[in-house]
């Protein structure tokens, strides 16, 4: 069986779907963040796959590297925010953090 672009896309779609599923279903904010990481990585797979099978040169790989750096920074900031949320609300359950509604 020859591995082609579609297989990569299927893998990334599955990964994206797990990410979404995690964001939507998990109550724990940390788990939501992990879902976001999954989505970012699904995007990375798409970038690289399109770079491999498309005619973009190495732009895709470069873009994936940017995303990884960005994801690291984002994770750091998000975890810092989470820590502050935890300090304020003594919970990281996203259902309970709904003050904006009021």
């Amino acid at each position, binding site marked *: 069986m020859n591995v082609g672009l579609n297989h990569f896309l299927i893998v990334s779609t599955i990964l994206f779907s797990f990410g*979404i599923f995690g*964001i*939507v*279903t998990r109550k724990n904010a940390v788990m*939501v963040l992990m879902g976001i990481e999954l989505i970012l990585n699904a995007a990375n797979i798409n970038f690289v796959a399109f770079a491999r099978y498309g005619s973009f040169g190495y732009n895709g790989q470069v873009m994936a590297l940017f995303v990884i750096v960005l994801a690291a920074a984002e994770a750091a900031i998000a975890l810092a925010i989470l820590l502050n949320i935890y300090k304020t609300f003594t919970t990281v359950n*996203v*259902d309970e953090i*709904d*003050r*904006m*509604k*009021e």
Partner: protein
Amino acid sequence: MTESTLIKLAIVILFLPLIGFIIAIFFGKKVKYTYVLEVLTVGAAFILSAFLAYEKLTNFVDREIISEFTWINIGSVSIQLGMLLDNISVIMIFTVTLVSLVVHVYSVAYMKGDKLYGRYFAYLGLFTFSMTGIVFTHNFLMMYIFWELVGLSSYLLIGFWFEKKSASDAGKKAFIVNRIGDIGMFLGILILFLTYNTFSFDTIFSQISGGVLPFGTETGLTIAGLLIFCGAIGKSAQFPLHVWLPDAMEGPTPVSALIHAATMVAAGVYLVARVFTMLTGDALLIIAIIGGLSAFIPATIALTQNDIKKVLAYSTISQLGYMIMSLGVGAYVFAFLHLITHAFFKACLFLGSGSVIQAMHHEQDITKMGGLRKKLPFTYVTFLVASLALSGIPLTSGFLSKDGILAGTTAFASLTGHWLLPVAGFSVALLTAFYMFRLIILTFHSAPADQHKYEHAHESPKLMVIPLIVLSALSLFIWFTPNPLNPDAGAFLSKWVKTPEISVPENARYDFMNSAVAGESSHHEIIYSEEYTEALHGAHVPAMIISLIMALSGIGLAFLFYQYKKVNVDKLAEKFKPLYKLSYNKWYFDEIYQASFVAGTIGLSRLLAWFDNKIIDGIVNGSATVTKWFSNFSGTFDNVIVDGIVNFVAYFSGILGLVFRKFQTGKVQTYIVFVIFSIVILLFLFKPF
């Protein structure tokens, strides 16, 4: 003495009483002795009038002095105001100022103690001014203005004791009844003005004799003349507008003497005399008939009245009827003579009655008087002389004029066949003598009916007696003619007063009034046909004898009835009850007018009020209701439909808000789910791949 000096004199005479009036009415409260001023101005006016009349009648006897100036210019029409001095106007002004002066002097004593003393004299001054204006005017416009002014002063003086309801009512009645006549006069003046574009007498008359007629026909001229005569009907209290004069006796007695006996009521006669030259035969005949009715009806009423002033009032109407009838039959000069003689003796009678009334402490009912001859000797003698004059007994002035009128009427009847006029005239002579002597016997001769009042009766002060003596002296023949049986012998008729030449076309005048042959008539004097001159000459002696018999039998009957009581008056009244009641109730004129005109007017007003209330107000109210209904509708529309839509939009938004609020959970995860579902849906909808 030139003509212009005479005119200036006339203007001074005209304005003297006005000055007195203005000072008295505006400064009456500050100046205490306004009545002295009034008497002085009228006295001065009288002296000047006497001088003016003397000058005019000696040096300018054949001249008509006219002075006019243009008052208003409108396009081609110019309105002239001016003075006319001819013989009848100067004689008239002499009479007016003389009677006015006498009444002023009398009033000083009579009205003493009245709280409106000053105002009374102011009104008298206003009246004298207005009357002078009527006499001197040379045009219809001024005539009309002063005509209304005398009406006004008459109204003010009748209602002088306005606190008395009957007096203020009488004033209103006089004013309104006079208005009815004046409307006619105004229309007549308008017709003449539209035809001739001028108000001046001489221009109008010369145009009429030039053949210009209103509406181009003789009928037009007749109508114009009769309309002008309507003014005289009102002012001279002629049938059928005579009802105001008896009520006018509510005014002070000197006023009755001056205005409602001697001068103002004679203004109507003067007016007819002024326009005599333009009256057609038809108009004159109607005037004669109205005069005859006015002479006869009030004379019968006067028979049964018990109020001393009412008797004299009806007698005044009757005598004015004589004058009007006399003018109507063409006996112009005798009408004017009677106007003057009547002014003197009737003023004397009224002032005498005032003296009696004051002596009897304001009792006017003659059945409650009696025996006053001894208590009031001067009043009695003067009253008797004036009554003899009124009855037409020889040696008095009344005999001259009355005889002339009756002769003229008889001559007229013998030429035209209207015999009812002299019959009425002669029966009035009988009635007049009878009711005057009934009055005298009941007042002065018979036994006192009220002993208490009789005891307290006393002769009036000198200021009241002297006027009586003056006026009764003027009721004698000597002032008018040297021959007591022949009025023509005096200068009054032979030189001063001439029937004016008739200006109406020949086919419209009386047959016996010839037109002048060119060059023959020197003073614009009428030329009667030979038959008429003969008839008048022939009628003179029989008329004199018959009228004398009538007057004497009237006096004799009065003595039989009331002095010697040969006939029981009450039984006689019972016997002829319908006639008695007819006379006693004044022929029911007031009742008829009340039932017809007054009730008719009130009914019409009611109808109009009903129309206003129901129809006009109904329409207004109806439209109001419609508007209200429409407003209700549009209000409801606003409230229900428009507001409903707005409210519905709000409500709907609210519902939507309620629905969509559910989505706003504040939970990021829910939002993400929605976002993802939305994206999926959008992808399916738009199918980008």
